[in-house]
């Protein structure tokens, strides 16, 4: 039997060991914590669970998280398309620098990302006094949270689109222009449909991170209950106050968001993969 084994395939025993190892690892580090989140959330019954979620402070945190995501995700959608359009379809000086800068939020610690906004817009910051004189508050307020979230989630859409657009090249756009389409119609009818799945994928990841971001938001938020508390921050506060059931209840919402994202991501990959294959057939 082993004679007919695929050359890159390991022995059966080795296969089993490797798979078991990975499964055990995943169970301990991913599945178990996830289960515990839900177990702890429902420890005191379904009633307490919903009470914890409908608590005014929890509701405010949920609302704020949704608001921040509703601003940050569309903003990064636009920035991401613009950036990848520029990098993939044009040649200009400093292109590689721009390409590197887009990755900056990934390589910087989220705490630093928050801190730079405090240093920039805070009371002691560079623009702080001027902003204060004009009655604009950014730090310890919603605008600061939005800014920090946009910064942290900026690369997701662009990173997804740049390789896709580079691979697709500019032939179809040239074709559309030669057929008399305006620049805007070319974008709308040719470019956008070609990147829609990649775009959706990027938006999904961007959204998951925007709702789940802790570090950067924690620095600029000020943790004012009911005002500048997002869901992740709220979980931490509840936990620190020994309201374990409530903390896990809110955490279970975030966990569910993660699960939904995961399912949609898999669905898209399945769909997206087919598109990629189609592209290979039709260069």
């Amino acid at each position, binding site marked *: 039997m082993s004679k007919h084994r695929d050359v890159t395939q390991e022995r059966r025993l080795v296969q089993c060991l490797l798979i078991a190892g990975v499964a055990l690892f995943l169970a301990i580090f991913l599945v178990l914590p996830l289960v515990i989140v839900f177990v702890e959330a429902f420890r005191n019954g379904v009633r307490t669970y919903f009470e914890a979620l409908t608590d005014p402070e929890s509701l405010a945190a949920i609302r704020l998280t949704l608001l921040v995501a509703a601003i940050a995700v569309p903003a990064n959608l636009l920035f991401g398309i613009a950036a990848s359009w520029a990098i993939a379809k044009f040649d200009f000086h400093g292109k590689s620098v721009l390409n590197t800068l887009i990755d900056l939020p990934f390589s910087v610690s989220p705490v630093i990302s928050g801190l730079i906004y405090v240093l920039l817009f805070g009371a002691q910051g560079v623009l702080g006094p001027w902003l204060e004189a004009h009655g604009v508050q950014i730090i310890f307020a919603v605008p600061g949270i939005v800014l920090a979230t946009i910064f942290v989630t900026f690369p997701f859409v662009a990173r997804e689109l740049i390789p896709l657009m580079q691979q697709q090249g500019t032939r179809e756009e040239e074709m559309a222009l030669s*057929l008399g389409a305006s620049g805007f119609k070319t974008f709308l009818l040719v470019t956008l449909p070609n990147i829609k799945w990649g775009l959706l994928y990027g938006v999904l990841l961007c959204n998951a991170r925007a709702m789940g971001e802790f570090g950067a938001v924690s620095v600029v938020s000020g943790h004012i209950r009911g005002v500048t508390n997002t869901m992740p921050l709220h979980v931490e506060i509840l936990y620190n106050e020994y309201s374990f059931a409530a903390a896990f209840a809110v955490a279970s919402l975030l966990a569910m968001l993660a699960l939904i994202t995961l399912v949609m991501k898999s669905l898209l990959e399945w769909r997206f993969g087919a598109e990629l294959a189609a592209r290979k057939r039709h260069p």
Partner: protein
Amino acid sequence: MDLRIVNLVKAFDRFPALHGVSLDIRSGELVALLGPSGSGKTTLLRLIAGLEFPTSGEIWFGNENASALSVRARNIGFVFQSYALFRHMTVLDNIAFGLKVRPMASRPAKSAIRKRALDLLELVQLPGVAERFPSQLSGGQRQRVALARALAIEPRVLLLDEPFGALDAQVRRDLRRWLREIHDQTGHTTVFVTHDQEEALELADRVVVMSSGRIEQIGNPDEVYDEPASAFVYGFIGDSSSLPVAVEDDAVMLEGRRLGLHGNGCRAGQAVLCFRPQDVEFVTGSEAVAGRVKTVRRVLNVRRAELEVGRARHTVEIDLGQDVEARRGTALSFRPRRFKLFPMDQQGT
């Protein structure tokens, strides 16, 4: 639509791609731009299309100076080697695209657009694929759709960039004949780029041979084959061999020996002697090209020998008649029946 190209220069970042190219194309003509890669033929085509803009020089469409017009305003039909069909649209939507994106005022009615697209599918002999997607078509079918899409906008000029380059030999031959038929039916002024001499000679009314950003020769297929204007054209179109010779007193010399050929008015001095393998006669006597056979190969209907000539062992190719015995090492003497001499400095070496 007449097409006039005047002294066109295109310089990319460092290297110049075209050095002052001028070309007149008559209305309804089918012209091939033929040359090796890097000869500037595709650049010239993209300049005509408006996909690139010239560094200097002018492009005239009839009486209109189109040099500064955008690709959108030029109203040209372009076909890429890679088809560039819109992958997310059906065949019918692809063909109708150019009409659908017109501004409201000049856009035909929906039913008229659909009818025109279906008519064009008929013209390119692909009825019944209207609702398919490009990925469901073969390469040859895609290129037909790409042509139908370009024709849909009633272009002033049809421009094709290596239209059959990605297809296999049999499909290429079929499409070549088919393109000629379409051209004769529709009468569009057509310019196509190719590196395939056979394609250019068979298909085009006139062939523009290009090399290193310059036009080497413009002529009908017979002219460029029978009367090559330069050693480059001689070498690029059809099989040929060349020898470095000297012309003295109207006699052609190779390494100080007479070859028994007349200079035909070629300026005295160093020159290049070009001839085709089939245009040779075997002779006896010393006034001839003498060499030793290196190999004998079968090239379809002829036997072809590679000969080493002279002390410098120049390699030339000649066809052998059935009655000529030749194997490795056989000594042969021949004279070209038809040949051309190009003074050395003319070809820039």
